[in-house]
């Protein structure tokens, strides 16, 4: 078992969350979890194909960050993108239909699991190669600064959240973009979801200094580590980073310590991670943690949470029905979308 880092305890007390916000975040996490469980089922039933990377266990990161942002902010993801897309507001029907390869999918059946896009929901992608989304997200942040400063558009205060994993943090694009984002004070959050494993490569076998958030310091950037299994801690850190970015004070590198509850993809035999390690992290399930907090703080009753779970289960079932009944892309449109007119 890889030596566990001591999970950080948030030094400042988490910003109080209202019942309404707490339930909204809970619903978002349940949506992510149930959606992914349904994907596994559909994959094994032969309804979706290719490489499918599920997000189970990491929900606190997507929900904690994206639900602290506005709907006109930008989100950029990786190949493990279903739940970022859902948190960004892409309807589950469109995501499920994309995974089924249908014409009604958010990428019209051309993208698949690793290439989810939605201009309407400001989802920049779905990037299948490790780290290649980081420059794209940094470019979206540059665009916001450009509108504000070169085009004098005072309303241009959008923030971009760029998600990637510990594996990407060893890639040149990570360092190059940290440099430029800090240099130009771009409104961006670099969110590293450190789930300890890049497929079969343990983080500490690939990385000379394993504490990724500390690398921000080399660029004169704010860097913070956070318990990625604690959605309220992630949310608090994200709120601070978003406020800083929106105020034109530049980027933040957030390292969320998290864990994927499943293999790298549904094709991964997952033979290298020990039972002991998995059990350690399973016991920190972020959804259970939030549920306990909401009940303990008297923000919700058990029945409120059950009602949300029931509602989401229905939405997921609807998404499958929608995907199954949706048309295949029209073969005569094979060449559509190569060029814009």
């Amino acid at each position, binding site marked *: 078992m890889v030596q566990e880092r001591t999970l950080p305890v948030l030094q400042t007390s988490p910003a109080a969350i209202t019942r309404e916000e707490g339930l909204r975040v809970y619903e978002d996490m349940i949506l992510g979890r149930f959606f992914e469980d349904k994907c596994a089922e559909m994959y094994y039933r032969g309804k979706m194909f290719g490489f499918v990377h599920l997000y189970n266990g990491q929900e606190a990161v997507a929900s904690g960050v994206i639900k602290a942002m506005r709907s006109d902010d*930008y989100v*950029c993801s990786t190949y493990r993108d279903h739940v970022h897309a859902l948190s960004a507001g892409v309807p589950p029907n469109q995501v499920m239909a994309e995974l089924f390869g249908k014409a009604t*999918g*958010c*990428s*019209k*059946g*051309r*993208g698949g699991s690793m*290439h989810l*896009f*939605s*201009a309407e929901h400001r989802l*920049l*992608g*779905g*990037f*299948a*190669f490790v780290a*290649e989304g*980081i*420059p*794209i*997200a*940094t*470019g*979206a*942040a*540059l*665009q*916001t*600064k*450009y509108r504000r*400063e*070169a*085009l004098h558009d005072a309303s241009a205060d959008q923030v971009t959240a760029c998600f990637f994993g510990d594996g990407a943090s060893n890639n*040149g*694009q990570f360092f*190059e*973009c940290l*440099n*430029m984002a800090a*240099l130009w004070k771009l409104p961006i959050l670099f969110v590293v979801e450190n789930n300890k494993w890049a497929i079969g490569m343990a983080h500490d076998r690939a990385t000379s200094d394993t504490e990724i958030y500390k690398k921000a310091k080399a660029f004169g950037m704010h860097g913070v580590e956070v318990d990625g299994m604690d959605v309220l801690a992630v949310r608090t850190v994200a709120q601070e980073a978003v406020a800083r970015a929106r105020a034109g004070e530049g980027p933040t590198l957030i390292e969320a310590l998290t864990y994927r509850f499943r293999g790298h993809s549904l094709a991964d035999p997952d033979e290298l991670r020990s039972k002991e390690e998995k059990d350690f992290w399973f016991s920190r399930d972020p959804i259970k943690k939030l549920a306990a907090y909401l009940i303990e703080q008297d923000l919700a009753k058990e029945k409120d949470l059950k009602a949300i779970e029931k509602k989401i289960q229905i939405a997921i079932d609807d998404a499958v029905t929608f995907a199954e009944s949706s048309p295949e892309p029209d073969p005569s449109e094979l060449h*559509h*979308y*190569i*060029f*814009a*007119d």
Partner: protein
Amino acid sequence: MAEVLMFNALRAAIDEEMARDETVFVMGEDVGQYGGSYKVTKGLYEKYGEMRVLDTPIAENSFTGMAIGAAMTGLRPIIEGMNMGFLLLAFNQISNNAGMLRYTSGGNFKIPIVIRGPGGVGRQLGAEHSQRLEAYFQAVPGLKIVACSTTYNAKGLLKAAIRDPNPVLFFEHVLLYNLKEDLPDQEYLLPLDKAEIVRPGKDVTILTYSRMRHHVLQAVKTLEKSGFDPEVIDLISLKPLDMEAIAASVQKTHRVIIVEECMKTGGIGAELTASINDQLFDELDAPVLRLSSQDIPTPYNGTLENLTIVQPTQIVEAVQKMVALRV
């Protein structure tokens, strides 16, 4: 009409488009304060400021990706490859994200981006600075690839490339920046997808692009003296190929010689030859002949370098042989 150098014509194209559309901006290495390594952006930093003429660190893959991200969110970036060869370091972003992302996203995003700069074999610049990336990039779906060759077409094509809603790789040639030509005073744009008939003729169709156009024209001067009448077509668009113009010419001459600066293997001529064989085989009286650079890294030594690329005498000989000997 005013006599203009090519690098100034390119600058005027950028300047006019930046003045016309405030979402157009330039980014790259030394494009701002330094004015560009070949002075194509000289003076624009002073005129438009540091956001619109953005000097970047030396991080090709990342700043190319950033330009793509900016294009996806509504801006129209022009990237200067200080030397187009450096963009090998940005191959992933150009291929996966400039070329393929619109399709992969099912049309969610447009990528209006121009990636321009000096390519080709210069004078003893060594192998890495003498690359012809058009050959490497031609297989990437979703890219348009354009090569300018005269001061006139450089300006009109670059303006059109900047206005195009798609990613355009725009190849200038390192040895053509000082070409001079009288340019019209009024604005003009040229189509990105049309070949240019440089010299009409009836004996043989010579297909060429970029600097080799000028080698071909040198050869044509010699050939004309012995009564040969070749048709010279500058491809301009290397992707997609203007097969309509090529077909019209081949139907007239029935013979094709391709003169290119890229290497023979997997080159533009290889694709052209295959397309001509596919579509125009019955029109041909002789196999398509390719005059290409040698399949070697471009050597530093001047004599060896000259032996690497096609020289006008080789073009003369090839035309004489194909036309006079009827092969």
